[in-house]
């Protein structure tokens, strides 16, 4: 098959658009992705804001602004997982098999699905930042920090989408994808998503060092709060991009493996 980048680009865009429109037509898929993180944000922001009274808690403009990076990353995780769930649905429903017969590069099929995830994460993180701002979160980092946050969230969603797609391609099971939903929270809770790393319990603090999401969430926090001590943006970019590259490669390998088994 000849590789025409422009044509493959159109395929990726078309598949990405389809992935997005299918997800917006199936509200039950989007409910957890959009509503759950906002609910958790509302509860955590009010339920744990007394933590600012702890001696080691950093001095920040608003507690809501401090915890919103956790919500952004939670949203990215769920958006990524949703793409795997939708892909498993396509496999079970037979649509993916028909796609495989199309004269396009197989990698474009994976990238198309992840393009939908990217779009979903862009919309989602913009919405989360806006809602949090309406309710009092402030972003001293300014518009540039907000844009960088949205970009980091989108790359993270693609990274998680890569893992989810790899699992979907390996198993082709919708029910399995739905049942791994709770495990998303393992990744989230193993990062300083809602509390400073120094205040996590010791075991978690040690484990957080090895979790790439730690660097992403801290980078977002540092950017939004314009406080480099809260997180290094460069470390966040390296972690998110590195993870995305690795998981997209994983998903591509899973697709090749699936094709061998067909």
């Amino acid at each position: 098959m000849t590789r025409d980048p422009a044509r493959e680009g159109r395929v990726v865009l078309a598949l990405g658009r389809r992935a997005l429109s299918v997800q917006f037509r199936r509200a039950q898929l989007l409910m957890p992705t959009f509503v759950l993180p906002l609910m958790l944000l509302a509860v955590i922001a009010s339920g744990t804001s007394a933590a600012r009274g702890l001696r080691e808690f950093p001095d920040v403009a608003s507690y809501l602004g401090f915890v919103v990076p956790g919500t952004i990353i939670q949203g990215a995780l769920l958006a990524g997982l949703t793409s795997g769930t939708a892909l498993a649905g396509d496999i079970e429903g037979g649509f993916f098999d028909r796609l495989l017969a199309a004269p396009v590069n197989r990698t474009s099929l994976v990238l198309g699905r992840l393009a939908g995830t990217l779009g979903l994460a862009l919309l989602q993180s913009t919405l989360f930042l806006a809602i949090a701002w309406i309710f009092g979160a402030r972003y001293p980092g300014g518009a540039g920090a907000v844009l960088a946050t949205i970009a980091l969230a989108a790359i993270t969603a693609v990274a998680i989408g890569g893992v989810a797609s790899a699992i979907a391609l390996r198993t082709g099971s919708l029910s399995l994808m739905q049942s791994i939903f709770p495990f998303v929270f393992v990744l989230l809770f193993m990062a300083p998503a809602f509390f400073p790393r120094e205040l996590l319990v010791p075991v978690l603090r040690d484990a957080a060092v090895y979790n790439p999401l730690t660097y992403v969430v801290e980078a977002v926090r540092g950017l939004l709060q314009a406080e480099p001590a809260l997180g290094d943006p460069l470390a966040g970019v390296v972690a998110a991009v590195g993870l995305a590259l690795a998981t997209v490669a994983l998903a591509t390998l899973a697709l090749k493996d699936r094709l061998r088994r067909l």
Partner: protein
Amino acid sequence: MSEAVHVASVLWRRSLNEVLRVRGALLPATIAPVIFLLGMTGQFGRLTGLEGFPTDSYLSWIVPLSCLQGAGFAGAATGANLARDIEQGLFDRLLVAPVPRAVLVIGPILGGITRCLVPATVVLLVGLALGAELPGGALGLLALYFASAAFCAIAALWGVFMAVTFRTQQAGPLMQQGVFMAVFLSTAYTPESLLRGWLEDFAHFNPVTQVLELARQATVSGIEPSLAHTLPGLAALAGLGLFFGALALYGLRRMGH
């Protein structure tokens, strides 16, 4: 009467078979509260350092919450299973049976209550293994299990109402998120005195706050087993049961009209 008991018992066994015959059916409902238990403790464990926190073990504070969460999800699953039966036409056939409609959901609700004992027990055991305290002893444990079972029944009634109203499994996330909101918009993370803003008022009037206090008699050293900590929880459970029971009956009566 005996016919109704027989029908309820058969449907109870059927709902238990769904767990026994489907491998791993209980796994997500059990693992999710355990993950929340560990995650919340890891993230917010230092909150016990705040003045006014009744215990110095955050794990002990969160264990009852996770038990209620697991029980609530098991209850909501009753609604999701009923929605599936409605979608597949099985419930339509059951509706023509010569028994009151309420009897048709008693069995699945009892099944939910039985199932909820698994996540509640797993959460409790994990919590105890990791250092949660059990100062309430046997009485406290009784309160914890009673609160979990009754909260599961209430979540199941909510699930039944949603199932007979929407008649589709797509309402499943709504059932779960109803439980999620009820549990977390309470004194989930910190006691009432440490809540701030709108949640302080909301948690004060949320009956689940009282149910949590009932359950926390088992593990929180500052909430010892007593009538003062028990009666408000029992009243809250009774009120919630009446409200959601009436809603479920109303929804069931409307089916087929």
